[in-house]
């Protein structure tokens, strides 16, 4: 039925349209370490983010023992941070959610399986991120439940480049 009405097709997503912004960029070189805010990140196609713990070949992240080719860069919605404060009274800052890119105005949950531009880089969304107890251990905040189904997006990098704070995020036309 969903096929028949064309729900979620590349055509319909492009037609409905959205444009977002890169608001924050973060990375950490090893598991457990605080994420550091960056003005720009260097994305390497098929590999990951230079200096980040999950860069393929580096493998120093908490989940590196579970290698995942589609986890080269992770994104998170700024709107989720607002919702956490509004609905659960939890202040979570952009460096605490431990994803690399915080975007605004980008419907991440709609993008699984799709390609989109993050600044000059081209990404393909592979799957939704899942919240984990590890993040509660690090932040000391009870965010596991409120983040179910809104914990961000895992992507592979199809075309690398430099992503800067303020860059536009847009659907692949």
């Amino acid at each position, binding site marked *: 039925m969903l096929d028949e009405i064309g729900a979620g097709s590349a055509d319909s997503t492009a037609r409905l349209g959205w444009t977002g912004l890169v608001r924050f960029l973060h990375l*950490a*070189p*090893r*598991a*457990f*370490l*605080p994420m*550091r805010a960056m003005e720009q990140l260097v994305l390497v196609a098929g590999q990951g983010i230079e200096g980040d713990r999950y860069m393929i070949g580096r*493998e*120093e*992240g*908490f*989940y*590196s*023992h*579970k*290698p995942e080719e589609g986890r080269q860069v992770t994104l998170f919605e700024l709107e989720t941070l607002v919702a956490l404060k509004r609905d659960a009274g939890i202040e979570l800052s952009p460096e605490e959610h431990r994803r690399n890119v915080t975007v605004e105005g980008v419907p991440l949950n709609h993008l699984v399986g799709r390609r989109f531009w993050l600044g000059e880089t081209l990404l393909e969304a592979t799957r939704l991120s*899942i*919240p*984990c*107890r*590890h993040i509660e*251990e*690090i932040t000391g905040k009870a965010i*596991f439940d409120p983040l*179910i189904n809104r914990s961000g997006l895992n992507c592979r990098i199809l075309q690398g480049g430099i992503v800067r704070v303020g860059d536009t995020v847009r659907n692949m036309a």
Partner: protein
Amino acid sequence: MSARPITTIKTVVAGIEEAGAGIKVFTLADPDRWDLPPFKPGAHIDLHLPNGLVRTYSLCNEPADNSRYVIAVKREADGRGGSRALHDEVGIGDVIGVSLPRGGLEPGADIAHHVFVAGGIGVTPFLSMARHLLQIGNTGFVLHLIVREEVPLAAHLAPLIDEGRVVVHRTSCAGRPNLASLVGEVGGQTMVACCGPEGMTDEFERLTAAWPAANVHIERFVAPPPVIDPDAKPFTLLLARTGTEIPVRAGQTMLAALQEGGIDISTSCCGGICGACRVGWIEGKPVHRDRVLSPYERERFLMICVAGSDADRLVLDL
């Protein structure tokens, strides 16, 4: 790729300082001098030593100084081996895995006065707390340091002693001070804290039994026995494919018990939603606490990370 999950923070020994009285001060830092995970004043960390021992030490530095973890270790010749390993075997540049910091003091906004009581090397968490309080401009504290003769970490404490913020009580010349008089009377805006040998912390606990719990803080050299949910019961896992029996302690997760038994289980969220650790069960009464399995699936599977058992024995398809 590492075969096993990374469970500790990787640090390198960036400094070792002789601090007198058989004490060495170790500075641990990230290999690239990245900031380390934050901590509260007086928090402690586990060190996973190269010889396999895991030992807990209080941090001496203050939270604002979060590019390093500083610990002071007294060599205990007849101890359990942790301090000997650190003193005798660990050198500059060695890699040591540490846990996330735990515990410590959260100076409350309505706490106007802190009274710290330390015995010997038990001064370490209060060095962190004192440094933190001074850093935020709170001078309303006193640290009573009870020693036999020699002051541990004398060079580190000297500025605080000179300012009269540390009062040294030498038992070799004046006998043991009256702990009750050091602690003083219950005061709503006063927090009292103690760290030292078991006898001292026990006495301190008795003296402060009537104080509000939020105004009392005790750091022990030896951890008290864990508090276990009175309703939690131990049970045994039988792994059908190998015949191995794995005991699960009251309050322990199956996942932790299996990992202790050297059984590798693929996990991810550890909260019962991702499905990574799904395992078949054959016999028993599993208690399902996940949010991923359907009622039908629960007749055959359970999630190792959150499930329990309502019977003494649970047989798993492992």
